């Protein structure tokens, strides 16, 4: 006994889903702010074979990359409160761990998982800039830091951009798993709205639309930025 789509609900819920966008973006941006510098530094430790740190980043990448994000969420969401409550008890801090906003767990999970992805992105991008340019920079009197900032990073960034874009879009989509820890993002909001009248199909269509609009906008932004960055590459070298 199909009644077709409930269009009023479809439109109303679209805006409910849309109201989850700020949380989704906040988690994405915080995760990127954390992961971009850390991923870059750890990629450097891999390329320059820094003892211990190099080994650490390799294991870190294989752990994070080798486990589903939903499992990482469950682990963090289940274990961090336990650790925190022990800690709070010991130091007599009067905070109920179960009142902590789940967004903090989201920050942790997505920051760490994105770092792992970006280590690999930067590692491959940095190795595309030949070592000779670094040597040339040193030979004309630039410090290592200056050489990286002025010569190596601008070129590595151009190579990394498409992959950073992919990582960002994947991150935006992955935050939908935040519903598993009641993060008030796009997916959860739309699903909660759907629960009332069992309008799941409409809700899913709305979620689908919101993500595709959001991701397309982000992709477009990256494309513009990449174009600006790669103005020196008229022909491929």
């Amino acid at each position, binding site marked *: 006994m199909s009644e077709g789509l409930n269009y009023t609900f479809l439109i109303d819920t679209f805006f409910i889903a849309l109201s989850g966008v700020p949380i989704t973006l906040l988690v994405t941006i915080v995760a990127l702010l954390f992961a971009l510098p850390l991923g870059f530094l750890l990629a450097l430790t891999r390329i320059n074979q820094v003892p211990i740190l190099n080994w650490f980043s390799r294991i870190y990448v294989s752990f994070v990359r080798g486990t589903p994000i939903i499992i990482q969420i469950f682990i963090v969401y289940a274990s961090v409160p336990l650790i925190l409550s022990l800690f709070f008890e010991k130091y007599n801090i009067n905070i109920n761990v179960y009142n902590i906003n789940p967004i903090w767990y989201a920050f942790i999970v997505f920051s760490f998982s994105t770092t792992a992805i970006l280590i690999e992105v930067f590692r491959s991008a940095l190795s595309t800039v*030949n070592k*000779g*340019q670094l*040597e*040339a*920079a*040193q*030979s*004309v*009197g*630039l410090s290592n830091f*200056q050489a990286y900032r*002025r*010569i190596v990073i*601008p*070129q590595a960034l151009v190579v990394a951009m498409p992959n950073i874009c992919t990582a960002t879009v994947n991150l935006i989509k992955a935050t939908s798993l935040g519903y598993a820890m009641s993060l008030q993002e796009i997916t959860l909001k739309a699903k909660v709205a759907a629960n009332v009248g069992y309008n799941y199909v409409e809700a899913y269509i709305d979620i689908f639309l919101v993500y595709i609009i959001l991701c397309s906008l982000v992709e477009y932004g990256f494309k513009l930025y990449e174009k600006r960055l790669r103005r*020196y*590459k*008229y*022909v*491929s*070298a």
Partner: protein
Amino acid sequence: MLKIKDIHKSFGKNEILKGVDLSIDKGDVVVILGPSGSGKTTLLRCINFLETADSGKATFGDLQVDLHDASKKDIHTIRQKTAFVFQNYNLFNNKTAIENVTEGLIIGRKIPKAEANNIGKKALDKVGLSDKYDSYPSLLSGGQQQRVGIARAVALNPDIILFDEPTSALDPELVGEVLTVMKNIANEGTTMLVVTHEMSFAKDVANRVIFMDGGVVVEEGTPHDIFVSPKEERTKKFLKRVLPEDYTFYI
């Protein structure tokens, strides 16, 4: 002006430099010849600290440094006194020709931008690239890129320019333009230490030729000494292999 004493360098178990001495006076154009793997490039790279020698001493004017554990400051000073031209040009791909030349002046030497641009333009004019100031390396031919590389070195006005096989990566028809530029700057009295396989350059431009083999200096002297009356058997053998007039086989 530049003296190198007893420089040693190994890569793992492979000993590349087995105690090389070298002395260069102001205005000298010294060419180092030798078969590949004889340590010519490594010697040059150790002088500019692109490789760290296992042992050895260098004297630049009145500055004495240990090539094995020089301080950061000494390395910086020596890099200010030297410039390096690379086999693969190693231009900064994200910078235009003029920016490639001025980068070391503005950032490395803190010269004001306007002044650096003037120096840079003059250097590019000298290598015949007056019309390529704003070209990115990807738009230049190999020969043009190497000439930018030379301009980058010349602009720094160093005491000595180190050339590491500057024409080896070039198509044969582009070698000439680079050698001409090198000849011109040699004629202006620039001190140069050149590793090359271009025998004509060694014969016509160098005032001293060093023949290296197996990590040691086998023989050195004027181009006439080396090319016309070499004393060592290894030098004779090498020259016989590389000099065109001695080719005895045909395809």
